[in-house]
């Protein structure tokens, strides 16, 4: 089987669109954090939010009328990926297309609002309009309806590695020759409740910047948005290999599995698009890179875009694909201790392969390798 990226879509705190976001990353821009608060507490956190005008061109659809932000992000990224793919591989028969949706926290805004009403006023105040939007597969359902997909649609839940697991699932689905392509979408929406939860879990810092590979780790900043890749048998960037990885029981054991993944995927010609986000996973990735690919160029998009959890691995794939196609990588922002000698400089060219390392904060790790 030949698995390629035929189209991509990107909705981020730096805007919407592959070229828009990529140009800003190359320029060294980073998203501006916004304060995020909630009536349930007087604590305020910072998060990178998708600017409202990023979705201004999203076509209205009945399914999106009451949908949560996550569904709108997913719809915009998915539609953009299909538009991009049409210029690469021509018309797409949606009856021969599957959808795999990757998510971690899901529709947390409506879920919180729904449950808040129950806690505050009792079960009789539960909203039948909000409840369906709390279900993990609501965004995928909306997207399938917008695109007219009537076949396979899966929602996968996991941590930051779920995007790679979704691509793995897509590759398995495309073994079926009845399918021409599979749209993989990762999406997340930011909310105060998530910030508070990750803070209590000692993973979040109060303000930017995210400082990847800093010792000791100082924490991450959450973000939101969506990434979409249309996988097909034709396209410009090839997926060489996917390692669905495995799980680690405790944080300090993440290095073992990340190192094994990198060992399996390592290629001297490859740069590494890391998931380093200012938490314990940076140490695991640093050890793996120092041991398995010490001369590889390393880049993490998270200082610029934030930690988007369910969307993050798909964002890394998009960064890698763009790097291979443009032969450039953005400059790593706010890097602390170096991983080997090779954070990218502005003029550094990229070879023909890129490895995506994806280590989540909740026990999952996976990776894949692209080539051009």
């Amino acid at each position, binding site marked *: 089987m030949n698995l390629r990226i035929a189209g991509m879509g990107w909705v981020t705190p730096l805007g919407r669109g592959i070229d828009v976001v990529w140009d800003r990353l190359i320029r060294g821009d980073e998203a501006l954090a916004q304060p995020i608060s909630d009536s349930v507490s007087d604590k305020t956190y910072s998060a990178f939010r998708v600017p409202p005008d990023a979705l201004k061109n999203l076509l209205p659809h009945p399914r999106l009328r009451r949908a949560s932000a996550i569904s709108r992000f997913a719809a915009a990224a998915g539609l953009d990926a299909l538009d991009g793919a049409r210029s690469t591989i021509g018309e797409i028969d949606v009856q021969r297309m599957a959808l795999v949706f990757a998510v971690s926290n899901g529709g947390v805004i409506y879920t919180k609002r729904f449950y808040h009403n129950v806690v505050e006023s009792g*079960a009789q105040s539960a909203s039948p309009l909000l409840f369906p939007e709390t279900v993990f597969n609501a965004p995928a359902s*909306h997207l399938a309806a917008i695109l007219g997909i009537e076949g396979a649609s899966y929602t*996968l839940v996991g941590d930051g590695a779920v995007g790679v697991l979704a691509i793995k699932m897509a590759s398995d689905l495309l073994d079926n020759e009845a399918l021409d392509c599979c749209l993989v979408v990762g999406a997340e929406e930011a909310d105060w409740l998530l910030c508070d939860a990750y803070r209590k879990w000692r993973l979040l810092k109060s303000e930017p910047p995210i400082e990847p590979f800093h010792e000791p780790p100082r924490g991450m900043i959450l973000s939101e948005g969506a990434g979409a890749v249309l996988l097909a048998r034709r396209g410009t960037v090839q997926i060489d290999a996917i390692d*669905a990885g495995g799980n680690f029981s405790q944080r300090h054991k993440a290095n073992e599995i990340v190192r094994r993944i990198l060992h399996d*995927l390592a290629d001297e010609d490859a740069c590494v698009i890391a998931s380093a986000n200012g938490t314990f996973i940076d140490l695991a990735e640093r050890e793996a890179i120092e041991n398995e690919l010490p001369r590889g160029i390393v880049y993490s998009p998270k200082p610029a875009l934030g930690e988007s959890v369910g969307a993050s691995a798909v964002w890394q794939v998009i960064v890698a694909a763009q790097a291979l196609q443009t032969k450039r990588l953005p400059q790593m922002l706010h890097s602390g201790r170096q991983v080997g000698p090779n954070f990218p400089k502005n003029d550094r060219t990229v070879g023909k392969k890129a490895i995506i390392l994806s280590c989540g904060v909740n026990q999952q790790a996976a990776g894949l390798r692209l080539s051009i």
Partner: protein
Amino acid sequence: MGTEVVRFNDLRGKRASVRVAVVSAGVISPLGFGLDETLASLRGNKDCVSPVTRFDVEKCRCKAAGQISDERLNDRQNGAKTNRLHRATRMMTAVLDELLVTDPKYKPELTVIGTTSGGMSFGEDYYRALYRHAGLRHSARWIANYPPQKPVIDAQYAFGISAPCQVIANACASGTNAIGHAFECVRSGKYQRVLTGGYDAISELVFVGFDSLQAATPEKCRPFDRDRSGMVLGEGAAVLALENLESARARNAPILGEIIGYGISTDNHHLTQPDPSGRGPRRAMEQALQSAGRSAGEVDYINAHGTATTFNDAAEGRAITELFAKVPVSSTKSMIGHSLGAAGAIEAVICLAALKAQLLPSNINFRNPDPDLDLNIVANESREAKIDIVLSNSFGFGGTNASILIQKLAA
């Protein structure tokens, strides 16, 4: 185990199609713990729905559910560490234990599990503590055990398994989707062994949500009955060990049955309501038959999704009537309630038990046939019958529909 790197160029042009055995299984549902208790309760047509005491249901229309006894769960797993875990993790650990007792040598390369709500009740505890500004000292534990992959990873870890986990959240079809995808992974020849199943533990948010939709009934759950008035919720977990049949036979593994077909379709009609035409469920069932190379006439029993809501049963019943001629049909949700992400997995194990015992499980609380549905309901009493092939349906919010076909393996 969990380390396979698939390099696509190596697989180009190869498309194997192998037979897929179920070599072991584990189940916890309101019917009981394990396959033997499950079968005994099926024979006894046991109504396992009881009043909900876990949270306040005073303001809900429905006040009952099919529930797992905490006492029995705690009897099996006790200790400082397990006491910190979510009930869903305990359920998953218990069913994986049962599976591995039957086949201790089973080592999956991939795990595909369905759920809808993970450790939701811990999320509720956390939010209530935030709201009260009190009791937040447990919040780190609640948050760490809330994500849906956590019960799967922890259960695997308890038995030294570290296979990568794909956790499918396709609403009420999650369990059947998980089994179906796992089946396709093995059938493709890429994997020898894939662990699959589903779990869900009852939670206030989900219970109140279905109540707010008026999908839950204050009365008995009566699938396909003329006077059906809605569903009751349930909970539980089930896992199935899938393996390439040749590999299973080569190591003399016990074989419970064979998965032979899978169908998946998506309705774009509405987020929560099925297309009344039954088109989506029909496509899923047709695909499952096509994928197995079987005809509708070869199916001996259908374990229906059968939630007992007006719309689901009408759409599913119509699709079954159009495709099948008087095949015996029952919804075992009448006995145990609807366990959401676990339902498809529990019902697959019920189908395996039915094949083993040559028993048609009953659709209890059935009083009056629906004149709009020409179905052969296994009403109120289980009965013996010759059954070789069974179909199990699961349909869910978001318009997701899934069907699998399971076959008794000839000796």
